[in-house]
């Protein structure tokens, strides 16, 4: 495909990947057994659930919104999935996870579209609601995959490798491939970008805001449902407190990847690389025995540095883009708008 490439657009798509490659290049020096099979598998396996949700979240951010409830969704999906497993084994566990994710997404979507609650507040509210429901379902203690079910195909999802590649990572790659097709090669994906770029213009392109948001938030829910399958089969347990603060990790990965919080621009490759970058960095800090207080400082610093590069680039680019980069504010609407 021919494209008018500039340094800026290259950075948009590949910047974070470049940093990841750089990090991988120095990783063996800093952490000698970084590329041991076990460690590499561990890095790929542990980030799968984050990556899968980040793929879904990329669509939400591309549409100009985000979903703060994914942590609550993950907890609820996990709890319901474990209940499903206890009741009906592998199949029911998988169906329960996916159905719960979809239901959570649809609830968010209907609050946003039917009650006109801004996505930020709607999903902040449902974050509390989903976690509360998870707590209610686990009042007698966390739900668990029993150890004697270790031979069950469901339990195996988390630990299994295919030709040396962890299954959760395979699922994550599959999700990203599907997400890429959805974003770049379907009408719906294009409409998400169009809507994120200019909701008002999109309306006059025949794009229904309600239908689109329904799709986006349902998609996030489904991605959480899929992520649950790789998450719960790795940690085997869940209750209302599962993955506290998950939402901010996911959004950070998406934005770190280069998807604009203003909407309209998205890069799944960037999200993918950002997820791996966080995982690799975390692995290196942990295996080097850096105390957790300093791990936080390093991870936060990386976030700022990566986005500073992006911020500076936008800032000092052509004057036209300066204007848009700053257009947080609105211009007065013509006519008696309100």
């Amino acid at each position, binding site marked *: 495909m021919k494209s008018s490439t500039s340094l800026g657009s290259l950075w948009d798509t590949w910047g974070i990947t470049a940093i990841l490659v750089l990090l991988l290049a120095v990783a063996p020096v800093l952490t000698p057994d970084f590329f041991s099979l076990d460690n590499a598998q561990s890095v790929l396996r542990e980030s799968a659930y984050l990556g899968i949700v980040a793929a879904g979240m990329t669509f939400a951010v591309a549409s*100009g*919104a985000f979903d703060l409830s994914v942590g609550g969704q993950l907890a609820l999906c996990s709890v319901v999935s474990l209940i499903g497993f206890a009741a009906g084994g592998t199949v029911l566990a998988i169906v329960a996870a996916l159905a719960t994710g979809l239901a959570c997404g649809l609830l968010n979507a209907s609050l946003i579209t039917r009650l006109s609650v801004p996505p930020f507040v709607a999903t902040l509210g449902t974050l*509390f609601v989903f976690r509360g429901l998870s707590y209610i379902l686990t009042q007698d203690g966390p739900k668990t995959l029993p150890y004697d079910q270790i031979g069950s195909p469901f339990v195996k999802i988390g630990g299994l490798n295919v030709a040396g590649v962890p299954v959760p990572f395979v699922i994550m790659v599959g999700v990203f491939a599907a997400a890429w097709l959805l974003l770049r090669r379907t009408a719906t994906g294009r409409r998400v970008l169009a809507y994120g770029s200019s909701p008002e213009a999109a309306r006059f392109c025949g794009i229904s805001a309600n239908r689109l948001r329904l799709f986006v938030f349902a998609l996030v829910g489904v991605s959480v449902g899929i992520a649950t399958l790789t998450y719960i089969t790795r940690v085997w347990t869940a209750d209302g407190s599962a993955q506290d603060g998950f939402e901010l990790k996911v959004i950070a990965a998406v934005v770190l990847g280069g998807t604009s*919080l203003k909407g309209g621009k998205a890069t799944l490759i960037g999200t993918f690389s950002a997820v791996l970058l966080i995982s690799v960095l975390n692995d290196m800090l942990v295996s080097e025995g850096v105390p957790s207080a300093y791990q936080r400082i390093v991870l936060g610093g990386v976030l700022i540095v990566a986005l500073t590069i*992006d911020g500076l680039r936008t800032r000092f680019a052509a004057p036209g883009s300066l204007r848009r980069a700053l257009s947080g*504010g609105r211009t007065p609407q013509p006519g008696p708008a309100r």
Partner: protein
Amino acid sequence: MTAVLRRAPLLLPLLGTVVVLAVATDSFLTGANIENVLVAAAIVAVPGLAMTFCLAMGEFDLSIGSTVSLAGVVCCSAIIAGQPAPVAMGIALLVGAAIGLANGLVITKLGVTPFIATLATLVIVRGLSLAYSGGHDQIVSSAALKYLVGGRPLGVPMPIVLAVVATAAGWWAMNRTRFGRWVCAIGSNREAARVSGLPVDRVRIAVYVLVGVAGAGWGLLISSQLQKGNGQLGMGFELDAITVVVIGGTALLGGRASIVGTVLGAVLIETIRNGLNLLNTPPAYQRISVGLLLIAALAIRGIRRAEARTLPVPVPEAAR
């Protein structure tokens, strides 16, 4: 009456909650309990007022919970090191200001989105707080520090005095001074503010410093209650602060702010929390009710807005 309700729409749900709790419990309407609720509300209202300025500008500060922790740690360890309590408190407030300044500079000079910049400082400042305290409780026994929550000038609990003063100052600053009007101007139309020569970056930095100082103040109040500081305090407080502002009616997009709304939001949240405790409600249900309250508050506003327009004008995205 309708005019009052229009300006402070939260009064209605607040009165409703009060009536329900007065009937459902026999301890809600006691002097001790009302004071209890108001003190708790006052403590969250103070940072909420600062956060109101941030949201009026159309931005967020997610780092405030970590500031709470670091300020408490710094203050208490300074007292342990032998500093007089007022000096220690001053140092803590300065640390809060420094965090705010760092946020402001990263956002304005490096062009990092506020959401991400303050998310990063949330993580970093939490790390600093843990590292500085070495993971230990910094335990103090300071009457001067205790005065922040325990003092009763003229018989009124100190947090309420602080909140009243902060509310009056906040209302005046927001609605009657250049600073407040510039904050709303920036939230209303950032590009215009820049082109018309308002000191946009300076105002933004000032707001982040304000939030940083208020966060540190929040930390001092918490440390005053607990007589200690440590790396775990203030987790998740950022959402508490934003929640009271949003429930209070300040537009997420910026441009308009309701100082009184923020205070009422704090009172409403704390009333409900207190009521659920008086009713011995399990914590799971407490979470759900806070979530539903948030959605309900904004849904009512959303529906009202939808009715008010006939020509479909774009509904701006909240999250931008």
